[in-house]
C-alpha cells in the first residue's frame, strides 16, 4: 500500500501547498518534504524539526487533542498550550549508542516552570483514550468499518466485484485493486464512504449488506467488555492482589479468550464476533531501538541538566497503561448465540486460570 509519508511528500512538493511554501522562500516546499522522508538513509539522530513532526510532543498531537476535545464536547483534557509554548526552548542533549557518547544534538526542551503543565498535557491526552478514542461505541463503529473493508477486499480479490454493490470506477474498488497507486489513496475520503453506503446496502453479499446497513443507520454493535468481566471474575476468586501481577494475569486470560474466539471463527472474512484489543501507555520510555530516541521524549530543563519528564514525574513514571479487550456482536444476534459463545469462553478461561 502507498506509504502515508510518500503521499504527504507528494502533496507538499506539488500543487497548491507547494505554491504557498515556495512563495515564502524558493525550494522551501522541497525542504519541508525532505523532513517527512522515511527512507533507510534518514539521518540518526534526526534534527530538531523531526521532534516537531513526530514525537510525544509533536505538532499533530497538540493539534488533534484540542480539536477532538472540542468536536466531541469532552470538558476535561484542557491543556494550557500558551504556557507550554511560552516555556519551550532549544536545548542540547547527549546522543549515545551502545552506551558510548556520540556528542550532542539539538532538541526541544521545556523550562522547569512548565513541568506540571507538561504532566497535565500527558494525562489530558491519555484521558482522551478512554473518553473518546477507545470509547466502546467509537471503536464499535471502527470494527464495523474494518469488517466491511475486509469483506470488500476479499470479494474483489476473489473476482466477485459484482457482489459488492459498487461499480468498477468507485474509488474504494480502484483502491482495493491498486493500493500502491497514490492517486487512488488520495481519492479516498469520508464522502466516498458515505456516498457508497446506499450502494453497499444493495450488495448481493449478505455480510457487506449487513455491515453497510448498520453503518448507514448508525446502529452500533453490541459490546462485550471481556477485560472488565475477567477482572470482576478474578476479584471474586480473590486472585491477583498485587496490581502488576493481577494485570498480567488479566492480560494473559484476555489473550487466550481472543485467540479462542478467532480460532472458532476460522479464516473467512464473515466474522460474527469482532475482537478489539488495545493498550495505551501514559508515556513511552526512551528505547534505543527507536531512531528518534530522546527526540521522541518530553524533556525538562531542571537543576542545570536536561531530564526526561518520566524521570522527574513519579505520577508519569508509575502510571499504568489503559487497556481494552472487547468482543463485538451484531444486533441481529437476537437469540444471543454469539454473545453466549463469548461468555462461555470467558467463563471457561476464568475457571482454568
Amino acid at each position, binding site marked *: 500500500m502507498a506509504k502515508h509519508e510518500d503521499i504527504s511528500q507528494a502533496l507538499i512538493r506539488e500543487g497548491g501547498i507547494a505554491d504557498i511554501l515556495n512563495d515564502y522562500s524558493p525550494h522551501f516546499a522541497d525542504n519541508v518534504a525532505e523532513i517527512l522522508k522515511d527512507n533507510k538513509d534518514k*539521518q540518526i539522530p534526526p534534527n530538531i524539526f523531526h521532534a516537531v513532526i513526530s514525537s510525544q510532543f509533536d505538532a499533530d498531537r497538540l493539534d488533534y487533542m484540542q480539536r477532538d476535545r472540542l468536536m466531541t464536547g469532552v470538558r476535561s483534557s484542557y491543556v494550557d498550550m500558551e504556557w507550554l509554548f511560552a516555556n519551550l526552548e532549544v536545548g542540547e542533549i547527549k546522543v*549515545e549508542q551502545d552506551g558510548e557518547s556520540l556528542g550532542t544534538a539539538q532538541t526541544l526542551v521545556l523550562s522547569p516552570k512548565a513541568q506540571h503543565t507538561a504532566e497535565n498535557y500527558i494525562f489530558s491526552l491519555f484521558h482522551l483514550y478512554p473518553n473518546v478514542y477507545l470509547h466502546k461505541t467509537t471503536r464499535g463503529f471502527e470494527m464495523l468499518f474494518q469488517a466491511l473493508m475486509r469483506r470488500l477486499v476479499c470479494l474483489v480479490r476473489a473476482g466477485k466485484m459484482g457482489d459488492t454493490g459498487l461499480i468498477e470506477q468507485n474509488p474504494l474498488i480502484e483502491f482495493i485493486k491498486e493500493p500502491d497507486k497514490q492517486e487512488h489513496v488520495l481519492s479516498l475520503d469520508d464522502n466516498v464512504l458515505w456516498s457508497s453506503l446506499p450502494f453497499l446496502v444493495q450488495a448481493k453479499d449478505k455480510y457487506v449488506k449487513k455491515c453497510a446497513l448498520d453503518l448507514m443507520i448508525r446502529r452500533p454493535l453490541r459490546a462485550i467488555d471481556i477485560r472488565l468481566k475477567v477482572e470482576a471474575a478474578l476479584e471474586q476468586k480473590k486472585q491477583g492482589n498485587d496490581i502488576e501481577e493481577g494485570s498480567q494475569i488479566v492480560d494473559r486470560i484476555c489473550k487466550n479468550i481472543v485467540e479462542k474466539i478467532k480460532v472458532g471463527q476460522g479464516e473467512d472474512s464473515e466474522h460474527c464476533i469482532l475482537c478489539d484489543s488495545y493498550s495505551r501507555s501514559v508515556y513511552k520510555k526512551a528505547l534505543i531501538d527507536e531512531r528518534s530516541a530522546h527526540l521522541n521524549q518530553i524533556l525538562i530543563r531542571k537543576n542545570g541538566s536536561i531530564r526526561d519528564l518520566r524521570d522527574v514525574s513519579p505520577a508519569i513514571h508509575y502510571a499504568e497503561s489503559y487497556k481494552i479487550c472487547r468482543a463485538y456482536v451484531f444486533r441481529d444476534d437476537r437469540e444471543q448465540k454469539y454473545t453466549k459463545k463469548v461468555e462461555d469462553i470467558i467463563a471457561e478461561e476464568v475457571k482454568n486460570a
Partner: protein
Amino acid sequence: MPEENALQQQVRRIISDAGGELIGRIRLQKIAFLMTEAGFLHDFSFEYYHYGPYSEALEVAVKQACADKVISEEEKATEWGTPYYIYRPGEKAAPAAEVEEEKYFVTRAKSFPSVVLELAATTLYLYRHEEFYRGDKGNPWLETERRKKFKAREGRLRKAYEAYEALRLLPAQETLPEIAFPF
C-alpha cells in the same frame, strides 16, 4: 535454512569469541555482518536499515537465545538514561568450538567504538551490496558520510577507515576488499 538452534549457537559463538561479553545490540549486528563478509558466518542475511547492515534473523536468534538461556542480555542505562545491553553466555550455553583466527577477528572488532564499527560496516555493505565499487556510483566512504552526517563527524569516518583496514589485514576465511579512502 539452518535450524533455529543452530542460529542460536552462532550467536553464542560470537559472544564467546568476544571473550564472553559484548556490549550493544548495534555492535553485535555490525560484528556479525563483518564476520559474514569475512567468511566466518554464513547463515545470516543482511539488508540496509537505519543503522546500516541489519539482519532480522540475527535479531530473532538473539531473542530466542535469551529466552532459551543460551545467552543472557542485561539491560543497563547510561548516566543520561539511554538503555544499552550487555550480552554474555547463558546458563544453558554449550561450549563453543574456538577458531583462533575468528576469535582474534571478533576481539579486534569489539575493541572499536560501536559507531566506528557502524560506519565501517555500512561502507563495506555499500561496496559489496549496493555496487559502490563502480566509479559512477561514487566512493562508498563518501556515501556513508552523506547518509550518516552526524555520526561521521569529529574524525569518526577516518577512524572507521582505520578500523576497517585493521580488520581487513587480519587472517580471515575470505579477504575483505580494499576500499580506498578519499581524504
